[in-house]
């Protein structure tokens, strides 16, 4: 095990709208490998998990991200977040 402060992290991932539909679930708790630092890393890792993820994240440009309910960038560091949300651009109101 590498000498690092990072532990394997349990994290809740939540999916909305057509991302939810493509992945086939609204949320899941996953243990993230320690090498995942940014949301981009997380998306790249998720895309290796199966064709449903590949389809959902095929166009990263149209994916919006929230870290613990706060809008974030795909380049944002995940840190000790408890929950990451993935969703398309919002269309309420």
């Amino acid at each position, binding site marked *: 095990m590498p000498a690092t402060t990072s532990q394997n992290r349990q994290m809740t991932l939540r999916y*909305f*709208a057509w991302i939810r539909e493509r992945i086939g679930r609204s949320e899941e708790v996953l243990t993230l490998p320690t090498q995942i630092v940014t949301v981009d890393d997380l998306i790249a890792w998720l895309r290796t998990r199966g064709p449903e993820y590949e389809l959902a994240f095929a166009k990263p440009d149209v994916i919006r991200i*929230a870290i613990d*309910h706060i*809008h974030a960038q795909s380049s944002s560091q995940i840190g000790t977040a408890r929950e990451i*949300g993935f969703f398309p651009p*919002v*269309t*309420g*109101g």
Partner: protein
Amino acid sequence: MISVTIQTADFDTSAEIDSATKDNLGIGAVATFIGKVRGEVDGRPLQSMTLEHYPGMTETELTTIAKAAYERFQLSTVRIVHRVGELTPGNNIVLVIATAPHRQDAFDGCAFLMDYLKTRAPFWKKEVTKDGKGQWVDARQSDDVARDRWDEPQQR
């Protein structure tokens, strides 16, 4: 006073305005916006619209937006009610109330709230047309433009 509610039920506009203005005789202006489900989508009759949201984040984000408007326009009160679930043409979707001593602040506050709600609050609409097709509504570039005007130097 800032108040935000996500609900499936319809809202009572008069009751909401009464609640947002009572016991505050400093309020001279009440600007209200209601968004409604229209009957057509690109010329095709709409059957229904389903609104999904991000529980937890939605309340946080709407409160953040409400506080920003409250401070920027020195509003007296802000009230936001947004419906979720399945709606049909003619149904109400959202109610935004901004009150202030004078009308320009109330109007600006209400428009600001809607522009940010439209581009920041985590809601998604799926439309089902009468021909049975369901599709997620695309975000509109014009909403981003409307929001970004609040970043520009003030015109008045």
